[in-house]
């Protein structure tokens, strides 16, 4: 799959997330300028709360792992793997994402993989 231009750096919110729509899928993009890499993309759909809200959660780290806490019921999802820290059998999809200058680029997943999270 090709890298796809999603938005620019100024659409992002430092230390927090925004949502993007890619081929009908909702993606949560997190921008952590102090981290390397600074950009993370996981599914926006919270499989436990059942709503598209993960981009609106608070990001941080739990035992060193970068996570976002769902704003609905506060479960933590890894920004790197999409795994839910509280429930082994729950996870959300993860996308490859990078900054090219001020451009935010994302590589869409194969459709099949894309659906596994939910």
């Amino acid at each position, binding site marked *: 799959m090709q890298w796809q231009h999603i938005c620019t750096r100024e659409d992002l*919110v430092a230390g927090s997330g925004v949502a993007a*729509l890619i081929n009908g899928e909702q993606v949560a993009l997190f921008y952590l300028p102090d981290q390397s890499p600074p950009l993370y993309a996981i599914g926006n759909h919270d499989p436990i709360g059942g709503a598209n809200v993960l981009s*609106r959660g*608070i990001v941080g*780290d739990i035992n060193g792992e970068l996570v976002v806490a769902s*704003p*609905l019921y506060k479960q933590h999802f890894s920004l790197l793997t999409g795994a839910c820290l509280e429930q082994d059998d729950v996870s959300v999809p993860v996308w490859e994402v990078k900054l090219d200058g001020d451009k935010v680029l994302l590589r869409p997943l194969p459709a099949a993989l894309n659906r596994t999270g939910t």
Partner: protein
Amino acid sequence: MTDDNTVFPTSGNLVIIGNGMVGHHLVKTLVEQGDASPWTIHVFAGENRPAYDRVHLSALFDDQTPEDLCLSPAQWYRDNRVALHLNDEVVEIDRDNKTVITAGGVRQDYDALVLATGSYPFVPPIPGHEHEHCLVYRTVDDLDAIKRCAGNAKRGVVVGGGLLGLEAANALRLLGLETHVVEFAPQLMPVQLDETGGALLRKEVEALGVHIHTGMKTELIDAGEAHALRMNFEGQAPLETDMIVFSAGIRPQDSLGRQSGLELGERGGIVVDNQCRTSDPAIFAIGECALWNNQIFGLVAPGYTMARTVAAVLHNEAGDFTGADMSTKLKLMGVDVGSVGDAQARTAGARCYRFQDEVAGVYRKLVVSEDQKYVLGAMLVGDCDAYDTLLQYMLNGIALPDNPASLILPAGDAAPALGADALPDGATICSCHNVSKGAINEALDGGCCSLGDIKDATKASTGCGGCAALLKSVVDAGLEARGVAVNNHLCEHFEYSRQELYHLILVGGLKSFREVRDTHGKGLGCEICKPAVASILASIHNDYILEPEHVGLQDTNDVFLANMQKDGTYSVVPRVPAGEITPEKLMTLGQVASKYDLYTKITGGQRIDLFGARLEQLPMIWEELIDAGFETGHAYGKSVRTVKSCVGSTWCRYGVQDSVGMAIFLEHRYKGLRSPHKLKFAVSGCTRECAEAQSKDIGVIATENGWNLYVCGNGGMRPRHADLFATDLSDQQLVQLVDRVLMFYVRTADRLQRTSVWLENLEGGLDYLRQVVIDDRLGIGAELEAQMDVVRERYQCEWRTTIDDPQKLKRFRSFVNAETPDQDIRFVRERGQPRPATEDERSDLIETVSV
């Protein structure tokens, strides 16, 4: 007394006569000893309800119901296979046939019998005492009778100025009667207090409007002229009244002992030995009907000890009742009274220290042994802070400090606090449940690691609660000794409590999360510490919360200045100060809700909540609301929400002050204050309390002379009645106290701790809060007010600031790369309004769309 040749049965039918607090405690102890009890328990009670907390009977005049006082419901007895016969008094014990016979004709055989019949109120044989408006104060039924009688009465007299008499007087006062107390002795509470203590108590009680008549002997009660009754006294002018409550002491209820020929004391009471056995080895007596060593114990704690003794004996275990300490601590009409050991200094050679503060209304007396080495007793009026320490000195024979007077001198003069370490293992910490320091340490060794665990495991401090502070210090010391750090860390990123962090931020002048984390924390932070630090920064600096350095810290509700609902949409609550709204504004709300198809509901805080707004709709909605003159309601923040009000003196026939005006004033004064948890206020225009101010964090109730301030009430998950904090305040005094209470709460509360829990955990409780806020004991009053000024000066409507900033508005988009709304948000209509579709409904809707 006990016939040593008798083999006492260890199983069979156990009959317990009486279901008061002590009788209930026996049942409970037996039941808790396990399922394999060899006894079949039958309980007979004269009253028509299961045992209740008689000690707190006067709470029925406040807001409690008899159900609140119930110790265990009838179902509990059934669940534990205890046969409970209510409203069926035992009238005869047939010792020859080992059978009891009830008024209702029930016959029940027994192998062992326990009398827990308690006592009855003594009514002096004054001619006329049988008048129907002459009542007593002991049972729920008695209280019902008092309530009924008081309905048509204006004035009430209590005969008896002892502990129970003053309780009864408080009841009459709460019923709104002009209340008089007639006492035969020359002072109040002659058993527990000396002349000075009695005089001080009298002054405090009279200040509440209760009329006290001491040295009065009632000779005759006959019909009155202005009132139903006239009391005639020896050598004094008569007193007319509509009702009389006798509370002149108790007498052991020993009639069954008398009927069945058990040995009685000269002045009544069923004689028992150290196992609480009567002269018949198959029969026990416990509580106020039992006479041990020629003493009747009129307190509940010794009764419980007797109950536990009998429970042990019934299980063939060692049990010994060897007397009980009669020290007591209570609050009478808001006045603290404490009596420890030999408070009257009757021991030969006893020496006394006295401290008296007529201004504050405090009297303390310390009674020490002739050699001045030990505490024999103490008397406290107006302030019982020293009670626990003095009691421990007395009970454990702890050697007095070099300057014994320091034990009763005002705090601040370096009174040596008796640390938990100084107590011997045998020291009784909780006398209601007889829990020693040793037992607490055992529980700690057994794996308990918090105050809550200890309470569950030992029941300590679950009775009267008087030992709560002492228990906490013993548990803390015990944990510390075991190397258990009492961890109050905020989260893995900050090894500090919220309170500590607050002070570090304040003192360090820190202004951002990054600064705070770099100086005092580690890692990136998380959803616990980020909002907590954001809230602390906001209550110190009150910056705009969506500044770039703050925005990532906020919970989603704060980020989008609205309340997220289960489907990811938001609800919008504009401020409607005090619930007062013009028809024009009301129409605006209707128009906006209708235009954006929002579900509309009136909130509990007298506002209107508009549900179902999508992220990208929020700025448009707010633009219209701000144009119409609305401002943000902060419903999304841990902050001041609303000030509810009744309509007050402007319209209401009963209102005595303008409650709406005051509520609007308060709402504007404190709006925008961010705090550890949400804050709710209410203002009522009169004592009818239609605004329900006593369930709020800050409650204000109008009086003829100004305002009464209530603090730390709570509705919600664990309701708590607010405490009366100060009375008859001017507007100015009111805001000064509210400023200080709120800022002190903001400074010292834990994360997400409501004011109710905060107060309950505040060492020293309400009295300490009064000292800090009213007396300015810490000297921080002006600082607290100044900080509130800062917060008020920097108030801004966060929605107006946001609307005016295109950069901030960018965040209010469903997607950074698409203009479409979130297609997964689906509504269906119910009762004419939209609501989120359920999962089933949603799949139907989506299928319809894809076809």
